[in-house]
């Protein structure tokens, strides 16, 4: 089937979508957007997290057909051209990346957290990122990056 949706502000017409396939598969294999990662395929790991109509969701659990007419923002849509989003920049600066597989999902989840809570406490960060697993266990650096991004964004928007 064909689906039409908006991804990172651009309209996509996607053909030959299998009715049972996930939005994640369509993004990666049919739209050339491999930033969202495919790991557990059961919503456990969060590495496929994208915004669907403004809410962070596991794209592996969204049927591609359910995204018909919807707006999707992936990790590729957060940067402003070559200029990284402050959340992305913070992950770079803090070394919050080891193998990098969980990073796109963590960045989307962190982006959403800081949209709603400019200065989250550590327990709030842990709660917000509870659906994103890092199996390199680089969580300390990830928490550093979230705190750093929160400071940067707060300084930008006093």
């Amino acid at each position, binding site marked *: *089937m064909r689906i039409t949706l908006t991804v990172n502000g651009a309209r996509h017409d996607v053909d030959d979508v*299998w*009715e*049972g396939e*996930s939005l994640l598969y369509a993004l990666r294999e049919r739209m050339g957007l491999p930033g969202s990662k495919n790991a557990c*395929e*059961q*919503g*456990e790991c*969060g590495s496929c*997290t994208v915004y669907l109509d403004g*809410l*962070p*969701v*596991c794209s*592996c*659990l*969204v*049927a591609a*057909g*359910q995204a*018909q007419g919807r707006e999707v923002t992936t990790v590729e849509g957060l940067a402003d051209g070559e200029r990284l989003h402050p959340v992305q920049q913070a992950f770079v600066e803090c070394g919050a990346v080891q193998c990098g597989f969980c990073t796109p999902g963590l960045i989307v*989840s962190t982006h*959403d957290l800081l949209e709603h809570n400019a200065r989250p406490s550590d327990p709030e960060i842990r*709660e*917000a990122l*509870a*659906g*994103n697993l890092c199996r390199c266990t680089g969580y300390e650096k990830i928490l550093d990056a979230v705190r750093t991004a929160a400071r940067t964004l707060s300084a930008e928007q006093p």
Partner: protein
Amino acid sequence: MDFLAPTTWADALAAKAEHPDALPVAGGTDVMVEINFDHARPPALLDLTRLPVLREWARDGGRIRLGAGVTYARVIDELGATLPGLAMASRTVGSPQIRNRGTVGGNLGSASPAGDSHPALLAADTTVEVASVRGVRLLPIGEFFTGVKRSALAPDELIAAVLITPPSGPQQYCKIGTRNAMVIAVSAFGFALHPDRRGVGTGIGSAAPTPRRAPAAEEFLAGELEAAGLWDSRGALPDGLAREFGHRVRDAASPIDDVRGTAAYRLASLSVMARRAATWAWDAHRSAACGPSDEDPPVRMHP
């Protein structure tokens, strides 16, 4: 595979009547796992996310009519004070991403013995509203679950809503798992005090082939509270009463050993959860200064 995406409730019921084998999908948090892992290949998916009516909730007489497509995140944000037991259960579901998609109706549709919302729905005497082209049926929640991942839903029926009476007393929800997030319950327990009718509600999760109540435990605790005049006096629970209630809840379960835990652990944890839930709820009931307010709690409608 077909992909059916009705945009009206009438069209959805017609589609289900025409394609009784179609698998309804809302948040996809169960259904898509089945498909991703090749465990399910239904002839059709019936997408329920284009039906605005399923995403609404409203006061209906004295009850809240919660559309089957309302997500856990919205139950928490919009109904946390009105349906505290269900909101507590919703907070234990998955992760933020899962709570943004998963729905109470979907939880019922999957009818897993481990469904997080089920013990809370059982304790609150929920009614399930199901519909088909043949009409609407109202099922007491206790009659909805018929076996492991089986329900009383007919092949042509869809879950429209659940009807829940806002509580007249405190509610509690407990869940055992290996971490706070992203766990299927090892065991779970929902509890409700119903001071208006001097009753007690219970719901057991992950410890029987279906979610189930513990009727003998409910009658025991309500009767003991009555006999001691505690419904009126709001006095302290007698020594050992909550513990005995816990034992009777445990005795209502029939768990199995599986990868998440042993039957013995499930029984022991249920006994503890039931004791704690009853104690916490009764303490909250005692400290509610002037009894339940006559005023309706404020209702917030979603935008």
